[in-house]
């Protein structure tokens, strides 16, 4: 099946007059090469299938266990698996969405600055710095968040809680700032370089002709950005955001090291001990877990997997829908 699809194009070139033995070598090489590349693609399919299958196998005991069995786990404070996972899912989504809201506008700003505002020489080194920052390990961000950010952000949260405390969102702040807002700030900083790197690449690929056409019509730089760069980069921005969201959803260490956990459905963003994310919960409980508690944790991991799957589906749907308007191709 591969061979038919590959040689179709190669046929045209081979009729150009290769001698017979050469042709055989070319044919064999082509077949091996396309076979290998197809095989690699199939490995991807197999790997993903394996991930879901093995997670389900390991989570099965927890999925089928009775409430009484589950209650024997020391940290299991709920009467059913769903009741346990619910607040975790809520915390995960809340932290990630907050992080995304903080990070995306800033990222687009940085990407535009690098691609269209900064002088070219500066822009190159800035691009390099952003690449470097995308590679900074999460545990380092965790250290930074826990030991640098918490004291620095304390006056800001105190001010917010004092002045805007009548809004439930900002009520009941207590120092140190081990709350979900701090975790989201750390997450936002973590996903910033990734979103920026991707959007910057997309912005840089804006067709020269589009830009020059806009300038020739007398556009200001902002009009150039709005008419040529942003429409071209829209699907790139969305996929970059989704990449960032995916990373924020699954990010473990930053949350684990910053937040003081709790298992509530709460919108008190500045109050400690209210939220916990799935990933951080797994990392904190897993080393001491055994038997059924391992299964419970893997079941929550399965939930996280499903969430990221859904987010990706949604992202792809958005991108496919927007592609027609993007101006690309």
């Amino acid at each position, binding site marked *: 099946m591969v061979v038919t*699809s*590959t040689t179709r*194009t*190669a046929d045209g*070139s*081979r009729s150009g007059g290769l001698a017979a033995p050469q042709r055989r070598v*070319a044919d064999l*090489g*082509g077949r091996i090469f*396309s076979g290998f*590349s*197809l*095989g*690699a*693609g199939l490995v*991807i*399919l197999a*790997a*993903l299938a*394996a*991930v879901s299958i093995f997670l389900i196998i*390991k989570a099965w005991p927890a999925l089928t266990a009775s409430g009484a069995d589950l209650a024997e786990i020391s940290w299991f404070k709920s009467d059913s698996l769903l009741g346990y996972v619910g607040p975790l899912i809520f915390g995960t989504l809340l932290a990630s969405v907050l992080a995304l809201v903080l990070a995306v506008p*800033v990222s687009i*700003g*940085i990407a*535009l*600055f690098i691609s269209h*505002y*900064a002088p070219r020489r500066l822009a190159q080194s800035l691009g390099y*710095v952003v690449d*470097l920052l995308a590679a900074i*390990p999460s*545990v*380092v*961000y*965790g*250290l*930074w968040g826990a*030991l*640098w*950010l918490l004291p620095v952000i304390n006056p800001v949260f105190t001010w917010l809680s004092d002045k805007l405390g009548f809004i439930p969102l900002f009520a009941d702040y207590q120092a140190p700032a081990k709350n979900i807002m701090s975790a989201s700030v750390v997450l936002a900083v973590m996903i*910033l*370089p990734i979103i920026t790197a991707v959007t910057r690449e997309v912005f840089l690929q804006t067709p020269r002709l589009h830009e020059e056409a806009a300038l020739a019509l*007398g556009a*200001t*730089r*902002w009009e150039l950005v709005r008419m040529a760069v942003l429409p071209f980069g829209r699907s790139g921005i969305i996929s970059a955001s989704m990449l960032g969201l*995916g990373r924020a959803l*699954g990010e*473990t260490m930053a949350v684990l*090291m910053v937040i003081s956990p709790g298992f509530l459905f709460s919108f008190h963003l500045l109050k400690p001990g209210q939220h916990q994310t799935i*990933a951080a919960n*797994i*990392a904190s409980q897993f*080393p001491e877990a*055994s038997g059924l508690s391992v299964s419970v*944790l*893997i079941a929550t991991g399965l939930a996280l997997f499903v969430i*990221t*799957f859904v987010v990706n589906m949604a992202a792809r749907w958005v991108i496919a829908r927007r592609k027609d308007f993007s101006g690309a191709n």
Partner: protein
Amino acid sequence: MSLATATPPVPTRPRSLGRGVQTSRRRLPRWAPWSILGSAILLSLAVLTLADATSVPSVLALAAVVYAGGITVTALVVEGPRWAKDRLATTVVIGAFLVALIPLVSLLWIVVARGLRLFSWDFLTTDMVGVFGSMTTGGVQHAIVGTLLITAAAAVISVPIGLLTAIYLVEYGRGPLARAITFLVDVMTGIPSIVAGLFAFALFTLFFGPAYRAGIMGAVALSLLMTPVVIRSVEEMLRLVPNELREASLALGVPKWLTILKVVLRTAVAGIVTGIMLAVARVIGETAPLLIAVGMMTKTNTNLFEGRMATLPVFAYNEYSKGGVGIDRAWAAALTLIVIVMLLNLIARFVSSKFAPKAAR
């Protein structure tokens, strides 16, 4: 601010096309934004001193708002609404950039400043055997070895698969299978690292018993995270290769696979190497999967297939949670990790600049 104003966005505009047709409006002189910025800072300093709330961050924050308002209104009066919008946008873009610099600069600064307290040759070349309590000796040699081994194993697994899959998707893939693979690569990109760790744990404990821990578990988890990154970046690079090059090669009678090897990959090699390096740099700092699957160890273990292994990120986390002198050790380990990542990036840069064909842009 100067960056934006020193190079006017629009190339030379004609002074005028003729009497009565005014095409060039009056523009603000170059010093205008600077003087507005200066007065904004002075103004907010004065206001905050009067309100008795002076601090560097608050002055800067207020000055930024005042400047944005000031420059927009001035431009609105002198230059007209379109240029006012442009000025505001420029301010916002540069402002976003400056805001983002705060965490990034502070992060690098604190890692270097705190990391250097314990960072030394000894720290790099000893392990943690016999270190307890508040002893300041001990180091990360075992963790460096573990990190390099596990990451190398992950790269060995994922680079060939990733490269070939990208080639399949760009050069061969047609129809539903290619669409399915593209889709699943997207899904894989979103796999949380901790889920990858759980998968490796589930896979290996199912076959080797619940107590099995080995570096290879971590490598499998990391390769699961790394493969989609490799595929994505390679795919992107291959798609950037102009079709004219492929067509020219095919028209010369070169078979398709040779065209891919000698023309497409050759053209894209710089981007591919950079992409792979960045993928390695991304997974080398992954903590969560290793925390779950590989655990921790106080001495060097070079056997990927047997026993726990120390890795730098997990080491940093463990020491952080111990507190006390452990926090210094965590910073030093973080610094080590960042140095390794930077070296990888530098090598990637070097390779890509050395092998990059002359680009059009």
